[in-house]
């Protein structure tokens, strides 16, 4: 087990290495003159030179690369072009709302989608199942911002039950914190829920057709017991895989959801940085998000070993 975990841990290194190299060359190989774009249209020659110096573009390429790796190894993601603040500090300031939003979405999506998928499989080809499948197909088609505005229109504008937008840290009280996260979590989680519900249904259907389930049923075990104890447990590996893959959806969706709901997290930071062409921030965010995604994949891989003792790579 320990050997397996260590092996998986080492397998993440080449992925992060590629991300690092990719991010480095993106700036250097982008068409046109990125420094001119970043400096803006009315920049003077001196401004341009200052931007180049800040990005380290005035050094020979191998020195630039060495510097980028050296700083990265020390946890230094560079300095924002506009505010001159270290990117790591800017990111650290914005982590909390994004983490809150992602975790609450994960919680809402998993706790709604898995039961829904189980019911759909149990009621296969009946009304409940059809309804779930229609939701799943629609969930894949609806863009996050549309879901967000529909929810705002119904629950904030018409029914006035929840705030239109904004974020309160948990320090300002638990209910205001939860209240501000309900609509964003649902909006961000729509596609994710559709994905989990669909794979839960498919995976359950496959397990329910197995012989041992028929045995369990025929020896008179309660339906609930068979569904939850026997079937769901054995259907877990694909479900956990999709929950992990889907985290990528959440990370991408955060950018849009935070913009709609005006949540001051990493997504907003990304958008503000793009509009100001503040590349060091974007570059830092890519590193952070990619590391988060790789870490999630690692946890999924490790969880397999617990979920299915037969898996020993």
């Amino acid at each position, binding site marked *: 087990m320990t050997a397996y975990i260590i092996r998986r841990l080492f397998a993440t290194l080449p*992925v992060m290495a590629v991300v690092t190299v990719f991010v480095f060359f993106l700036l250097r190989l982008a068409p046109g003159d990125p420094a001119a774009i*970043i400096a803006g249209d009315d920049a003077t020659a001196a401004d341009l030179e200052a931007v180049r110096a800040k990005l380290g573009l005035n050094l020979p390429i191998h020195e630039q690369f060495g510097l980028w790796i050296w700083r990265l190894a020390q946890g230094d993601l560079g300095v924002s072009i506009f505010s001159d603040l270290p990117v790591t500090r800017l990111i650290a300031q914005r982590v909390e709302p994004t983490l809150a939003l992602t975790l609450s979405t994960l919680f809402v999506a998993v706790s709604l989608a898995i039961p829904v998928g189980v019911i759909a499989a149990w009621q296969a080809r009946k009304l409940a199942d059809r309804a779930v499948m229609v939701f799943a197909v629609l969930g894949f088609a609806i*863009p996050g911002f*549309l879901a967000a505005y529909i929810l705002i229109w119904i629950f904030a504008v018409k029914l006035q039950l929840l705030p239109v937008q904004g974020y309160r840290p948990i320090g300002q009280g638990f209910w205001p914190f939860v209240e501000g996260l309900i609509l964003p979590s649902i909006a961000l989680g729509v596609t994710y829920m559709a994905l989990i519900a669909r794979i839960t249904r498919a995976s359950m259907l496959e397990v329910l057709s197995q012989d041992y389930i028929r045995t369990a049923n025929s020896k008179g075990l309660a339906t609930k017991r068979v569904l939850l104890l026997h079937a769901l447990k054995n259907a877990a590996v694909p479900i956990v895989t999709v929950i992990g893959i889907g985290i*990528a959806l959440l*990370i991408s969706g955060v*950018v849009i959801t935070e913009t709609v709901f005006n949540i001051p997290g990493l997504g907003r930071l990304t958008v503000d940085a793009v509009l100001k062409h503040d590349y060091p921030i974007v570059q830092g965010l890519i590193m952070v998000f990619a590391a988060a995604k790789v870490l999630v994949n690692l946890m999924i891989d490790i969880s397999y070993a617990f979920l299915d003792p037969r898996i020993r790579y």
Partner: protein
Amino acid sequence: MVAVPSDTALASGTDEAPRSLAQRIWTPIRRNPTIFAGALLLTILVSLAILAPWISPDPLKQNTINRLRPPSEKFWFGTDQFGRDNFARTLHGARVSLIVGITVAAISAVIGLALGILCGYFRRVDAIVMRIMDGIMAIPSILLAIALITLTRPGLGIVIVAIVIPEVPRVVRVVRSVVLSIRAQPYIESAIAGGTKGFKLLVRHILPNTLAPLIVQATFICAAGMLIEAGLSFLGAGVPLEIPSWGNIIAQGRSFFLRAPWCIFIPGAFLALTVLAVNLLGDGLRDRLDPRLARRM
């Protein structure tokens, strides 16, 4: 996940005589309700997009007297904050979305096919290319697109490139796995033993087997491409504002959402419908052409 041997294209036509790929695509469109619904919806949307300049007024013409008018007989979809006709803008937006979706799908499919075949054939290339693909896939796609756009001037071309890069690895993976599993089939061995040379083997036996999963994958990439383009434009990092794309219309409607919700809901609904149509088509084709994948979903 464990690689399941793929005999995709072979298994799909068991109930009938062997047919050409075109027949394998057209026959189910007539018979399968999912494909039919998707194809019908898409045909309507494509026709509206093509006919937009003739059936709607000028999408850029401003008319400040008619600012933020709700949908009416004169303005079917209402007007925006400059008094521009939203019906015209939405229809012209369809062109941008469809062009982006189709171009992204086509380019990703071609690049992905080429890389996938190289990976399936040459072990050294495989080791390098797949590591790069893993790295690209670790970066959230919208963020990768955003990064590229931060460094360049806005334009339709750069948006397409920015969406293609994160989509390519998905195609490479599919094609590579098909090539690897086909190459392990006994009939390929016998073809080689029978003296079939490398290139002919590729064109006659390997390529046809990659086509079905490639087409299915391309439809999903088309849908994803349209969603990402709209997302980018919504964030102000997509196609330039003077081009009426659905994302742009929605982005401009944001500040007026409470007064003029139609500026967001109508183009949003069109985007959802278009993605739905493409997804239905993809689901149907997948069930038809790639039963192995269909069973998994």
